[in-house]
């Protein structure tokens, strides 16, 4: 627990953690919003946003103003309280996992002993938000999107947990800091199978293409957020981007050694540079595969999980346990 608390009283530490979390959530949404559109363009040999500011840098500011000034339309037959609640359920919990992520040796809100479980538990609330949104919209597209999201997230959580569990068996701790410190060799080398399984599940868990069946725009208009407009829509988007950030952080912590890298001065703070670099490498990968692969069919999605990922992750876990015990 040698984090920020040796320097500042408890109350300042809490304020700093909350402000830092907010900065990460909104800053990440801005960076990712721009990066995704720019990369989407360049993957198709277009330029992406170019008009507002230098190479479209201020495009996201303009979009933000537009979304904030738009009317929040609630469908007449919708379940009004649930409809308004769903974006909040989606957006509110995304702050919490950021508190336990070890951005560098000293930049971390709390080092929970059950950090991994905490992150995964909070992250799965997003499924509930999608279900509530789909149900409350009273729209068949939203409903189908929500059903698909639930089936998909429940299925993919299992191989995800099993692949991470293999690493927990190696390190004997759930604490994210402990896992970073246990890596003399990055676990991507020792656990390549778990890494690949986690990578696939991470895409499915964040409902990103090619597993974006919950919002499949060509079949379901926009899936669970069909009826949402203005700021309630952008809360869903920000939650999605933050969830991408969180799963990328987990991947960095578990497989790429967290902050480890070429030593810099004041490494207990500047380690965050290496950490964020690795996180955005994963984010780049997420955007990359989004603009490479077509959307999977629903049965293919389920086949991939139950017939391939689950047995392979179980075998991987078994082998890990045997090797650790030997």
């Amino acid at each position: 627990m040698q984090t920020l608390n040796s320097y500042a009283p408890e109350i300042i530490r809490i304020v700093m953690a909350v402000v830092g979390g907010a900065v990460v959530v909104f800053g990440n949404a801005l960076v990712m919003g721009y990066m995704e559109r720019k990369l989407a363009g360049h993957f198709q040999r277009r330029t992406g946003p170019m008009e507002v500011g230098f190479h479209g840098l201020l495009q996201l500011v303009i979009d933000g103003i537009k979304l904030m000034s738009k009317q929040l339309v609630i469908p007449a037959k919708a379940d009004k309280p649930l409809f308004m609640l769903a974006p909040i359920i989606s957006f509110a919990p995304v702050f919490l996992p950021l508190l336990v992520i070890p951005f560098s040796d000293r930049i971390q809100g709390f080092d929970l002993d059950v950090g991994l479980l905490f992150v995964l538990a909070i992250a799965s609330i997003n499924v509930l938000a999608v279900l509530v949104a789909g149900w409350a919209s009273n729209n068949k597209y939203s409903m189908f999107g929500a059903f698909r999201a639930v089936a998909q997230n429940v299925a993919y959580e299992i191989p995800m947990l099993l692949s991470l569990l293999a690493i927990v068996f190696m390190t004997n701790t759930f604490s994210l800091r402990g896992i970073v410190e246990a890596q003399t060799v990055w676990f991507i080398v020792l656990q390549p199978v778990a890494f690949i399984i986690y990578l696939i599940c991470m895409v499915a868990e964040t409902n990103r293409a090619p597993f974006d069946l919950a919002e499949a725009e060509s079949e379901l208009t926009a899936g669970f957020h069909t009826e949402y407009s203005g700021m309630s829509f952008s809360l869903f988007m920000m939650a999605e981007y933050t969830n991408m950030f969180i799963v990328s952080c987990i991947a960095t912590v578990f497989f790429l050694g967290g902050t480890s890298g070429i030593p810099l001065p004041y490494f207990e703070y500047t380690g965050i540079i290496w950490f964020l670099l690795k996180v955005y490498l994963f984010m780049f990968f997420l955007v990359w595969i989004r603009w490479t692969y077509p959307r999977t069919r629903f049965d293919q999605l389920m086949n991939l999980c139950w017939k391939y990922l689950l047995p392979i992750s179980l075998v991987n876990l078994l082998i890990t346990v045997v090797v650790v015990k030997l």
Partner: protein
Amino acid sequence: MKAYFTELFTGAWSLIVGLTVTLKALFSPVVTVQYPRQKIDVTPNYRGHIDLIKDPETGTHRCITCGMCMRDCPSDCIYLEGEKQEGVKGKVLTLYTLDYTKCSHCGACVEVCPTQALDYCDDYEVAGFAREDFHYDLLKRVEERE
């Protein structure tokens, strides 16, 4: 069991191939033209509205005021006038107007012209606010052109 792993590995390989395709596209030069700031040459086949050709030898148009284009035009969008002048053989063109709002780019005027005096221009930025903006005086245009 063999089919299971074959499918797994061929599938994974095809995914990697797909990723390399998009990665190559990412580092290829952008093909978008930033239009108002940057323009590309118009293809010679482009059919804009018709224009009188400036003959490089005489320095003026080749129209002999025969009126074939006016008569042949299915949309009646060409109107021309000519007059007999002292010391000049044949009639001299004094007015040649094109009502571009009616023109359908059929090209009958270009084909029928006995002296090949007409051709399509490559003007593509022809937006305007009034109908009269598209009533072109082709004689004036050919004189103004360098």
